């Protein structure tokens, strides 16, 4: 193992890790915002409300992220209307394509988590809120959402880790994230084992820190306490 090479190129790898974190942070936050309406609609009792989010979730969970990434980055350029449209400066940029695709992708998974969390709320709690004279929307905001947050948080933290790993695909559309940076360095040094090892260690470290941070958050939100009564 050639440690000197690892030390020499480590700052560049850190640079790549920065882009990885940026991609993951934007997509999991934007994905959550998009998933909230999707998840609520998905757990509706009316089939016509349920149908659209169901199709969306089915498509994004049933196809590889790589296909979705290529559809957005290479695919949309096939249409002249988009190439001459106002969104083209963004859709031409690999960074925005990665952010858009990862957001749409993770939103489908988070929506399913939310649906599971919403359906796991004991019906008695919702009935109690209605009995106290809360409106449907009040029940949603004061009872359903806070409870779903706590039930869904552990699964959400899993999804964030999965997105951290999925973000490596950004390297296939020329972005220099941690994996992309590693591949670029390897093209210069011809030392795949050392550089991939260093990159892998960085991914492990980031995952470890994220897991710890979510544990702290779960403790703060008393996720364990809210699940004791069940």
């Amino acid at each position, binding site marked *: 193992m050639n440690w000197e090479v690892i030390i020499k190129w480590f700052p560049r790898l850190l640079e790549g890790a920065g882009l990885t974190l940026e991609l993951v942070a934007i997509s999991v936050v934007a994905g959550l915002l998009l998933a909230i309406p999707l998840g609520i609609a998905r757990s509706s009792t009316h089939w016509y409300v349920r149908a659209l989010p169901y199709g969306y979730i*089915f*498509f994004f969970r*049933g*196809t*590889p*992220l*790589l*296909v*979705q990434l*290529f*559809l957005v980055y*290479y*695919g*949309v*350029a*096939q*249409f002249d209307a988009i190439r001459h449209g106002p969104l083209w400066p963004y859709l031409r940029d690999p960074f925005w394509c990665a952010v858009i695709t990862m957001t749409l992708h993770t939103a489908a998974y988070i929506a399913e988590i939310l649906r599971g969390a919403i359906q796991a709320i004991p019906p008695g709690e919702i009935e109690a809120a209605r009995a106290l004279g809360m409106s449907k929307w009040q029940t949603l905001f004061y009872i359903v959402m806070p409870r779903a947050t706590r039930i869904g948080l552990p699964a959400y933290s899993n999804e964030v*880790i999965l997105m*951290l*790993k*999925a*973000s*490596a*695909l950004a*390297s*296939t559309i020329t972005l220099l994230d941690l*994996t992309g940076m*590693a*591949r670029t360095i*390897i093209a210069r040094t011809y030392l*795949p*084992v050392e550089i*991939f090892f260093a*990159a*892998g260690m960085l*991914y*492990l470290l980031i*995952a*470890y820190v994220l897991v710890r941070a979510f544990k702290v958050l779960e403790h703060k939100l008393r996720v364990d306490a809210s699940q004791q009564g069940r």
Partner: protein
Amino acid sequence: MIDLHGFGPALAAGTLMTIKLALTALAIGLVLGLSGALAKTSQNRILSTIGGLYSTIVRGVPELLWVLLMYFGTVNLMRALGQWLGMPQLELSAFAAGSIALGLCFGAYATEVFRGALLAIPRGHREAGQALGMSRPRIFWRIILPQMWRIALPGLGNLFMILMKDTALVSVIGLEEIMRRSQIAVTATKEPFTFFLVAAFIYLGLTVIAMTAMHFLERRAARGFVRSA
């Protein structure tokens, strides 16, 4: 109907390759997962540490990185091995590297699924086997393993769906599966959206088939058990 410009057969061949890759990786992953679970639940400290490290490290690193590492990182290793065996041209093909890498990742997650199933089997069953004078491998083969399948099957099914989508990553090292074939078609026809959308629908179709197969497997594995819910 979508015009495939004569690339239909190529895509079909790619689909076949994807299925072959997924099944090979599944076989490797099941062996690794079962070994990992046995190691992790072992009384032996060294074995349980190895099992724990395997599932933790492999799950914390992106699948794409494993695929790249297995393909580009094993060149020197394979050359050394080839020299020793007297075959200087020895190297891992994209198919071999891809299926080992994906099997490794599947195995790491399967370790946890199998471990859960292993722990879910009442201790009395093992003790009953011992009381009947069965040897330890026999107890595992005849009593533990057949019961583990039923418990592990839903978890393994989910992992297989993930594995099937991860096969797309092997296109990065040039294996001619669905994605690579679509990319070739895109280069020739300049219709990226059409071909990547077709690829997406092939994957959707494969997912639906796998889901249906899992449904029947689960029903078969659960025969003789009455669900109270």
